[in-house]
């Protein structure tokens, strides 16, 4: 298959599955389908590894019967009846819940064009040549570079959602992407891993965007060489934009899910309307997409997406809801259902931005003693906020000098970190089209050298 199913055909197939579900005893049904064609060029060991072409169409069928939910996925059109039957069977054994149901359609879904014909017409030979140019360019920047894995690919996808409550929407998108994962090796010295990559919507942007991200990758790999043990102290930590997500945002966004609050796994439900962070911090769920990277205008349940402030000037202003969580709290707006055809709708963010601040990055890293963390590997308990982890890539800054460090751990608490933000940079980095982060400085963290 060289192209995904036409979105109109995909939508029709969803409607047929809904009819089938009703015939098999479902009270309500929703079918989410996606059809994908991908071409990828894999890189390993600084060489081309393998080119591949894969395609698949998947249907996710959710039914409600007697107030209970059942869900089944299939990638076989000939087995859809079996999948619908299993979904109905699963609903038959589950206990009812008054809040279970299928989302009611809400508003007109705008038509968004996210397909660049030049991108989807890239042949595997052109893509392979581009991947090799990018690889050669990265390797020329530093002869010590060793690529463990990498790739350049094109993804062309159609998506459709239909439900017995009247939802009917479909979308077509294409994206070009690439990444590198590896390290520098110099004799017996092996640097720590680094990763970088990007995703764009247009053919004209692809090679340049990947060149920029691969350049960042090489700098991170090179920066990890010559690392020595750090020092133990309590003090500031600077997170460049690429590190903010892994250090702060992953757990924080998960705790903002109304599902986490309802099930007692998040402490944030009782904090709505309260100051939970430095007043310089504002975070938005960017349901309308970030500049230059259109995203699907509807969520996993076919609900119209919107932009939602989550933290405004330090105040927790909203949580994230899908339709179940919305019904469970009597009607909060929902458009944050995430997931694909292979899973039940969950709760999450489609895109995230942290508002820029007023500080210049060069001033933020000008510290008497502190650490710049470029890669962090941690274990955390998002419920309590406690975390402890190893600086996998980073620099100790002391008296105007900086040097790479290893075997250094940082321990702290996520929620205290939010209140201890002392600076946010005046520029942000857009990553993979869906995450926009400035650099952030946090004071008073516990740093232990090995």
């Amino acid at each position: 298959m060289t192209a995904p199913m036409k979105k109109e055909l995909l939508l029709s197939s969803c409607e047929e599955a809904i009819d089938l579900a009703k015939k098999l005893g479902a009270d309500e049904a929703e079918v989410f389908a996606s059809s994908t064609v991908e071409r990828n060029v894999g890189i390993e060991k600084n060489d081309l590894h393998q080119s591949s072409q894969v395609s698949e169409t998947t249907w996710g069928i959710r039914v409600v019967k007697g107030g209970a939910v059942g869900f089944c996925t299939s990638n076989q059109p000939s087995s859809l009846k079996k999948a619908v039957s299993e979904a109905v069977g699963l609903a038959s054994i589950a206990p009812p819940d008054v809040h279970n149901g299928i989302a009611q359609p809400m508003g007109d879904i705008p038509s968004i064009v996210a397909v660049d014909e030049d991108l989807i017409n890239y042949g595997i030979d052109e893509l392979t040549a581009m991947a090799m140019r990018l690889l050669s360019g990265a390797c020329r920047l530093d002869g010590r570079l060793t690529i463990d894995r990498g790739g350049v690919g094109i993804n062309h996808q159609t998506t459709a959602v239909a439900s017995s409550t009247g939802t009917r929407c479909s979308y077509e998108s294409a994206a070009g992407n690439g990444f590198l994962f590896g390290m520098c090796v110099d004799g017996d010295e092996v640097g720590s891993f680094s990763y970088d990559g990007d995703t764009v919507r247009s053919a004209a942007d692809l090679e340049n965007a990947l060149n920029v991200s691969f350049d960042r990758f090489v700098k991170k790999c090179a920066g990890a060489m010559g690392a020595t043990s750090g020092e133990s102290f309590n003090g500031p930590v600077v997170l460049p934009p690429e590190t903010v997500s892994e250090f702060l945002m992953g757990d924080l966004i998960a705790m903002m899910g109304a599902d986490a609050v309802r099930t007692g796994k998040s402490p944030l439900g009782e904090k709505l309307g309260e100051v939970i962070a430095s007043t310089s911090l504002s975070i938005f769920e960017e349901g309308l997409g970030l500049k230059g990277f259109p995203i699907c205008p509807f969520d996993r349940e076919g609900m119209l997406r919107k932009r939602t402030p989550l933290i405004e000037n330090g105040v927790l202003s909203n949580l994230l809801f899908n339709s179940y969580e919305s019904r469970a709290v009597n009607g909060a707006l929902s458009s944050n259902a995430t997931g694909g055809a292979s899973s039940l709708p969950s709760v999450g963010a489609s895109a995230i931005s942290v508002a820029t601040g007023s500080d210049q990055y060069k001033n933020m890293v000008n510290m008497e003693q502190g650490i710049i963390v470029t890669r962090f590997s941690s274990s955390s308990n998002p419920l309590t906020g406690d975390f402890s982890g190893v600086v996998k890539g980073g620099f100790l800054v002391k008296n105007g000098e900086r040097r790479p460090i290893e075997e250094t751990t940082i321990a702290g608490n996520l929620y205290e970190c939010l209140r201890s933000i002392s600076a946010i940079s005046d520029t942000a980095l857009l990553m993979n089209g869906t995450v926009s982060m400035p650099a952030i400085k946090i004071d008073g963290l516990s740093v232990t050298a090995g």
Partner: protein
Amino acid sequence: MRLLLEEIINTLDGFVELRYHHKEFRSLRVTQGRVESTSARHRTGVGVRVLESGTWGFASTSDCTKASILQAVDAARTSARASAPHRKDPINDLPEVELAKGDFEMPGVDDIMTRSIDEKLELIVKAEASARAASTLIPSATAGYNEIYAEKVIVTTDGASAGFRYVRPEFRVLAVAERDGERSTGHEAVGVTGGWECLFREESDKLVGRATKAAVDLLSAKIPEGGKNTVILAPSIVGLMVHEAVGHTVEADFVQSGSVAAGKIGTKVASDIVTLCDSGASELIDGAGGTIPVDDEGVITQDTVIIKDGVLKSYLHNRESAAHYGVAPTGNARAWEYSDEPLIRMRNTYIRPGSKSIDEIIANTKSGFLLDGPRNGQADATGEFMFGVQQAWRIENGKLGELVRGVTLSGKAFEVLQTVDAVSNEFKWDLGAGHCGKGQPAKVDAGGPYIRCEAMLGGSQ
């Protein structure tokens, strides 16, 4: 399906590998008395790999008809031909090896697949309710049951023709405890390749009891001081360390990329009492979660000794890397689903048990910590690792003392293994409920005895 793939492969020239993979995944989850998930996923298709002009081409199709599979073969050939001019280091012929032929039956398939979904749901409803009833300090709990059932057929133009089925059930429970605004969690999980009795060798009630006790006890625990310490690692932590910090660094594709294990075959990387292996079978105790009889290149799996008496003996290989190093493949090529290419992956990774009991080891430890229950973990190209630990007990003068929380364990694997001075005679597989990630997931297991070593403990400064 094997007959169809054989019919197709007999019409093809050059090296072609056809892999049929049908997978069914079922997931049941209950939180606070509500059934949060009753879901199933069926995914079926054929992955095609060709080796042409010294490079690989891959394609897949979910349409398992002869015409569609042949189209996928053409697509894979097109990809390989497009790639070949750019490949700097072409792949020569794959090494000859005894390839699997016939059907290989794995235990527990009929047992799990004929049990009703009602029984499985009832199990977790009861477990979740028991967890919340265990203490007034537990306001929230989650219990889950997952199962993966799979059918595979691997056929190659150079002689492999094997089929097998397997089932991997998992059970997990999470308890959240709360007191005066302080919260903590306790988690227990078990996953096996096998049937119901294998999964519940230890009854679900006991697993629930341990998770709730951990959650409640951790409410009163303090964060310890960080720094270098003597630590005794329970089999769960040993498993995580040998998988993340050693196993990945000896995957031959990663070795070729320059991992810390490169060039170290025949050198001392651990203390004399450490022998570390990776096996396709479930060694010592049955049910290990990464068990496979045949890998996804059709190679019969074996028990690969990676480190013997402290000396690095072998990497983990697929056919391509075995050819590069001039050794026999070890049966480590694995693909997660039909649309994934086979990569070098671990199966069941473990340290062989020693002669002392854990009680003796604790009694002979003047000062240190006993660590149990992995939370998560990552390792680096350098072998530097970081694992979260659910529970740690202080050891003073040969006796277990206070429980502490918020602990992470870190170090460089080969340096830590050099410090191992005690290996217990107990053995447990304890990573079967997790997944390994390397671009695609894989079900693996890992474990071993208790070991005592020196490592960095993360806590407060």
